[in-house]
Each structure stands twice: as C-alpha cells, then as structure tokens.
C-alpha cells in the first residue's frame, strides 16, 4: 500500500520550468531551472502540500533573487540566472534544496526593516548571526523588496511557507550570502502515512514496533523447546536451523551508551543468574529484520497490532537512535516507535540473515537416529537408520528354503535371511508367525537381518563403548534407553553370509576378467593394499566402522577426532591417504582440508559424508579433496580408496616422504 502512495518528486517539478519561463519573461529577466534527484519519492499527500511552498520559493528566487541581465553582466555573472532544485532522501526525510545565484539577502535591509517594524532593538540586531538575521524574513509582514510587485514582495509569503512546511512536520532553513545567492533547505518527512505496528510492553512502557520490520514472533516460556542460550558476551536463540542473537529491550532502553563488549558481558551475566529464578516468566522474542540483518528483540508482552500515525522524533533528540518516532495512542498517551535499525546498531548484536547453527554450538558428537530391535530374548540390537534401506514385515509362511538357506521374496527379489544367532554368539529365538526383516543399505547382495521385535527408534549421540566381548560382528555397545544395546557390523554379517559362494564366484570372475570387473573384485575381494591412512571422524561409531572397512583391506589406520587433531597427527606422521569426515566440531572437514594442503600434504584425500553427494562435490574439489564418498557405502568406499591409491602410485608416496620434507 505504501508503495503506491509514494510518488517521485518529478511529478511536482514538471510544472516549474514553464512557470520560470513565464515569470522571467514578464520581468525582463533571464532564468533557467535545473532539477536534481527527480527520482526521489515522497508520499502523495506530502507532495501535494509541498506544491504551494515550492512554487512560492521559486517565484521569490526569480523576483527578489535573480537580477536583471545587465546588472548580472556588470557583476560578472552569466546573464541568465540559475535556479537549482535538488531533492535527496535520507533517514526518513527528504531534503529539498532551492538554490539560486541571485543577489541574496541584504543584511542591512533586513536590519533596517526589523528596526522600522520595532521587532528588535539595534543592539539585538547587531548580535544576530547572519542565519538568525535571515530567519527574520520568515516573520509575518516582513518584506525587504523595495517595491511591491504583483508576484511577490507583499510580505505575505515566507511566513505562510514556513507554516505550511511546519504543518508537514518539516523544517525550513535559509542560507544566504549577499550578492552571491540564496539557498533554502526544506526538510520534510517521507510520509505522513499510517503504518501498522505491533504494540508491545517492556516493563511499564508501551512501544510500537513497525510490522514491516518483524519477521516472526517466538514465545519463550519455561519448559518450551525454544530457550535462550548464551556465550560469555552474547545471547542467542536457536530458531530452527539458524541462530538469532538476542537483544533485551529493557536493557537497550536502560543503557543510553552504545553497547560494547563489557556491556554485553554484564547483561549476559545478569540474566544467567536470573534465569534460575524466573521459572514462570513468559516472554516474547520478536525476530526483526533491519536491512538484511536480523536479531531477536525480547519484550515482556505483546498487546496486538494497531495502525498508528507516525510523528518523527523531536529534532533536538538526535542522540535517541533506538526510536524512529512517536505516536498518539487511543488512550491519548504517547507511545514511542522503535527503530529496528537503531536498536541493531545500538546493541551491535545483529547477525547476517540465516547464519547456520555452527558446529561449535552443537554437542561435540553428532546426533543420529538409531533403530532398536530384538532377536533373541537376551539382547537388544541397534543399527543407525542411515544404514537401513527398509524394514519389512514377513509372514513365517512365506519363507522359502534352498538347502539350509532361507529366502523371502521382498519386492520381487529373493532376499537371504540372516539369523544373528548363527553368526554371532547371541541368544537364539523361536520366531513367531510374523517377524521383521531389516534390509541394510550399501550391501549389494540381497540380505535381511531377522528381528523378532522392533522396539523403537531413538535420537542419540552414538557414544560407543568397545565391545567387551571381542566378537568381530559387534562394533560395540551403548546404553540406550537404559539398556545395553549391541551395534552390529553389517559388513561382517554380509561377508559371513556370502563368504562361501563369494570364493567360488571370485575365481570364476578372475578367469574372464575385464578391467572394470577387476575393480569390483578388488573391492569385494581380499586383495590387500598396504597403505598408511589417517582417518578423521568425530563420531566414534562411524570411526569404528570405517576403520574396520579399511583395516580389512590390509591398511594401517591412525584415527583423529577432528580437524585440529588431524592436523597434529599429519605434522608428526606421513600418510598415503587421508579420509576425513566433513561435519565436525572445532575444525570441520573443509577447513581441515585447506589447512592440511597448506601444511604441505600432497597425497590423496577423500571426503566422507552423510550429506548428499551432488551438493557438496564442488566444494570438496575446491577445498582440495580428490573425491567425495558416502560414509557407509562399504563397496564404493573401498573401491574409491583403492583407485585413489593406485592413481597416486606413479608418484611413489612411500619414498617421496624423505624427499618431500
């Protein structure tokens, strides 16, 4: 709505050239008018009310200001007078400057006139500054023109102009140099518009906040999942996937000095203590957008919305930046209108829009969803959801037998059943009429792990304990929902299940090997690769899995928990290959990669991630990674590792170690 009300000042200016031409001709003068800033926009109603004062001022310029051509020539001025009307916009106001190069105001004439009207004594007049003297012409009945023309000089005029401008909540300023010209500066507000505001309470004060600045409102209450967190000198709210820094309106209002580090620290400390006592406090956080930067403003109460008539702040209160104006409310009281920009710069606490939650604000360990299930009565098993393709309910009757092996048809594929008690030393189970089949991801062969009961899924940070029983099929155990749960090594189960015919098919494939097949065989096969590998991952669970993957290929593994740890290990040892996770605390994979490349590491690097491949592949390459692999895709990972190592072989990494450093 506001947009349509705004019109360029050009609409107003267009009528002036003709007026100037006509007037000049009438008086035998020469004048030209120039415009600047015609694109500056003003509210339509303001524009309309500006029309008369502007017309009057320009008329004055021609009549009183600009001299006759021969006088101008005698003074060395161009014969044609020049009037410049310039509009500029800034801080909610529009400035319009009307400048002419005429004779200017004659201080002596003004003094004489003031004296003759008995306005001031001679003493007083002597003390006035040129500016104050010039402002005398704004008084009613004050004209210094020697003769009255039908255009101007009748003494009604400047006072009317001033009143009109003041009615617009604007101001008028005269700057004149005798003999050189006069400049009149008009300041008018952009708009008299009515703007929709949200009315809030902070303590006992009522404040209006323009709705265009508000993105959303978050209610903060004890026990809610949106809570304010703090670092030593800043408070934040975690809002979905981004951080919003928090400014407390009561503190903003109480502190007239712009915030610095110590102010912020003081506030955080005060509220950290208070937080425990404020159990029942409900507050509202307004997420404000101040020209692209956003932050949250904490207020006590939200009262509702209202359309308010904006009045600018008093011109003598320039130091008040957190408010942009005031308005009269329905009850006759004045309410202040907050300035989103002003508060942002006062507190200095806004963040660019959409700052992602940084890893350092997270718990150091990634959170994963795991599936909990049972097979035998004694144990509980766990698998991360990321490792599972699907879960299928299976009827006992649909199981088919091929020798000792059992199969179930899942989506048209005969899927081999894997019974945990056959492969691991765990309790057995008499399956009921119906059971579940967990079909893992990243396994080429169709297989399904048999489960008697699906317990739950749970979000947790996988904090793996080394298995107390050294069972190769068990990655480790973790306490989940109060019970010890066993994390299975899917790769082991798969190898065990398919091991016997694998041997046979491998033989066959090798006989008629094509290069492509060869790779595949190597990935699955037992061909060992001797290499020293640095593995970086912050999650113990994934670290363990990937370590096993690689160790099974004959590589020696050194592990690190984050980028910083990795850099340290890189400095003290030489590696043939670095395999690194991306999302890690302290130093993530991207940063690590750039850093380690700078440190002089030239060997291959593989990024491991649970992120989607396509989005991050470019970034991986840019940072210096050779390739990019999905975390749990065993076959693909092994293949890539081997290919990467082989392609680097021509540059013998083993011997170059001595030369390189």
């Amino acid at each position, binding site marked *: 709505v506001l947009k349509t009300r705004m019109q360029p000042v050009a609409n107003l200016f267009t009528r002036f050239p003709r007026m100037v031409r006509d007037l000049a001709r009438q008086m035998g003068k020469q004048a030209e008018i120039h415009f600047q800033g015609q694109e500056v926009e003003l509210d339509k109603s303001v524009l309309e009310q500006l029309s008369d004062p502007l017309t009057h001022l320009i008329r004055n310029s021609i009549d009183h200001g600009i001299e006759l051509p021969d006088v101008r020539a005698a003074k060395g001025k161009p014969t044609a007078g020049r009037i410049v009307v310039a509009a500029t916009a800034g801080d909610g106001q529009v400035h319009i400057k009307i400048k002419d190069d005429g004779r200017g105001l004659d201080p002596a004439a003004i003094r004489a006139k003031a004296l003759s009207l*008995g306005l001031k*004594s001679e003493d007083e007049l002597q003390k006035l500054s040129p500016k104050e003297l010039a402002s005398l012409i704004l008084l009613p009945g004050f004209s210094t023109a020697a003769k009255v023309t039908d255009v101007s000089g009748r003494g009604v005029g400047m006072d009317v102009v001033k009143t009109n401008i003041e009615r617009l909540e604007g101001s008028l300023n005269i700057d004149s140099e005798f003999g050189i010209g006069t400049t009149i500066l008009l300041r008018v507000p952009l708009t008299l518009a009515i703007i929709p505001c949200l009315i809030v309470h902070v303590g006992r004060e*009522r404040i209006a906040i323009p709705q265009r600045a508000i993105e959303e409102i978050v209610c903060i209450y004890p026990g809610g999942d949106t809570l304010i967190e703090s670092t030593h000198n800043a408070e934040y709210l975690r809002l979905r996937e981004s951080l919003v820094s928090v400014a407390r309106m009561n503190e903003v209002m109480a502190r007239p000095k712009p915030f610095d580090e110590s102010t912020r620290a003081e506030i955080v400390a005060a509220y950290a203590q208070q937080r425990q006592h404020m159990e029942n406090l409900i507050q509202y956080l307004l997420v404000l957008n101040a020209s692209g930067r956003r932050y949250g403003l904490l207020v006590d109460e939200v009262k509702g919305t209202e359309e308010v008539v904006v009045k600018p702040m008093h011109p003598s209160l320039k130091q008040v930046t957190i408010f942009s104006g*005031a308005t009269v409310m329905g009850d006759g009281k*004045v309410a*202040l209108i907050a300035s989103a920009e002003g508060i942002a710069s006062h507190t200095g606490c806004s963040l660019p829009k959409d700052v992602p939650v940084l890893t350092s604000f997270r718990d150091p360990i990634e959170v994963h969803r795991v599936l909990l299930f049972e097979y035998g009565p004694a144990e509980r098993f766990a698998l991360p959801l990321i490792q599972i393709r699907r879960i299928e309910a299976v009827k006992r009757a649909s199981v088919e037998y091929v020798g000792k092996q059992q199969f179930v048809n899942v989506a048209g594929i005969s899927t081999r059943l894997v019974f945990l008690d056959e492969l691991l030393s765990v309790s057995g189970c008499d399956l009921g009429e119906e059971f579940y089949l967990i079909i893992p991801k990243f396994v080429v062969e169709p297989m399904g792990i048999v489960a008697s009961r699906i317990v739950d899924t749970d979000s947790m940070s996988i904090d793996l304990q080394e298995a107390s029983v050294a069972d190769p099929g068990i990655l480790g155990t973790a306490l989940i929902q109060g019970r010890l749960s066993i994390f299975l090594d899917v790769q082991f189960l798969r190898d065990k299940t398919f091991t016997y015919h694998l041997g046979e098919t491998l033989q066959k494939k090798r006989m008629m090997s094509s290069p492509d097949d060869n790779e595949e065989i190597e990935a699955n096969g037992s061909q060992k690769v001797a290499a020293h590998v640095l593995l970086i991952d912050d999650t113990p669970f994934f670290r363990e899995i990937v370590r096993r993957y690689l160790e099974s290929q004959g590589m020696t593994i050194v592990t690190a928990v984050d980028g910083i740890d990795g850099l340290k290990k890189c400095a003290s040892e030489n590696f043939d290959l670095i395999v690194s996770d991306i999302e890690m605390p302290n130093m993530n994979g991207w940063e690590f990669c750039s850093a380690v490349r700078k440190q002089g590491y030239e060997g291959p690097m593989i990024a491991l991630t649970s992120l989607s491949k396509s989005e991050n592949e470019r970034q991986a390459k840019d940072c210096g990674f050779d390739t990019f692999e999905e975390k749990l895709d065993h076959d693909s990972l092994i293949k890539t590792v081997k290919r990467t190592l082989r392609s680097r072989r021509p540059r013998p990494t083993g011997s170059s170690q001595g030369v390189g450093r």
Partner: protein
Amino acid sequence: MINSNLQVCTFRSADQLFGVPVLDVKEITTETSYTAIPHAPHVVLGYVNIRGQIILALDLKRLMGRAESSSSEQRCMVIFKPTVGPLFGLVVDEICEIVSLRADQLEICQSSDPNGPNESRSKLVHRIAKLDGQLVVLLNSDMLLPFIETLA
C-alpha cells in the same frame, strides 16, 4: 511599545521565580502526563500529547540543576510558539502572573556568575529583573533546545 515595556510570563520552580517573554508563549496547560523517552537527556521529561500534537516536555528544575522534588504537586507546562522552536514546552511547578517590566528593571546577566553552573547552562539565563523584593530570572527561550542538544 514593545521596546520600552517587556511583558513577561512568570512561573515558579523550586522556589525561584522565572520568566519568559509572553510573546514566546503559545499556551499553558496542566496536562503533564508524559511518556518517558529512554536515551534522551535527563532534562527531558518525555512526550506529552496536546490535542494530537506531540510536545517535548523539558523539566525546568532539572535544567537548572536543582534537586528533584516530590512529583505530587500539581505541575504546569508552558508551551512555546513554533518561532521559538518546534513543539516543546517547559514543565514548571506553578504559573504566576504576567508582569510588565520596564527597561530599568532589567539587568543583563553576566556569564561570569560566581555560583552559575557551567558555561553552556548560563546561556539559558540572559537577564534578571528586580520585582518588589523578588528576582525574576528571565530565560532565553531560544536557547533551551540548543542547550539540550549539547547534552549527550
């Protein structure tokens, strides 16, 4: 004639009689319920709504650096004409009469006033008038707004 006799509107604040030229005064009101303006100088009481116009209210007592009295007493506001400055008024304790002062009753106030406060504040007072045993401090109403702008 204006030059010979000065009409002065007098008012009391903290037991001191003050005055401003009556021609500077637009109106006097008893409406003084104001909305405080955070970050504004101490001498600014706040905004007052006078028939839809928002007037900036200055506290004369705070302007003169006097201790604050209890706010229970009935206070008034002297609102100045736009020629003096845009939309502002002075909150005082009590309005007194309008007096006509002869030139010989006026004395120019020297800025080297011994117990005068700081330099910029002394600009607020430019003349003192003797009035049957009482002194009337004539305020320089033009200087009020420039003065608060100097207060950071």
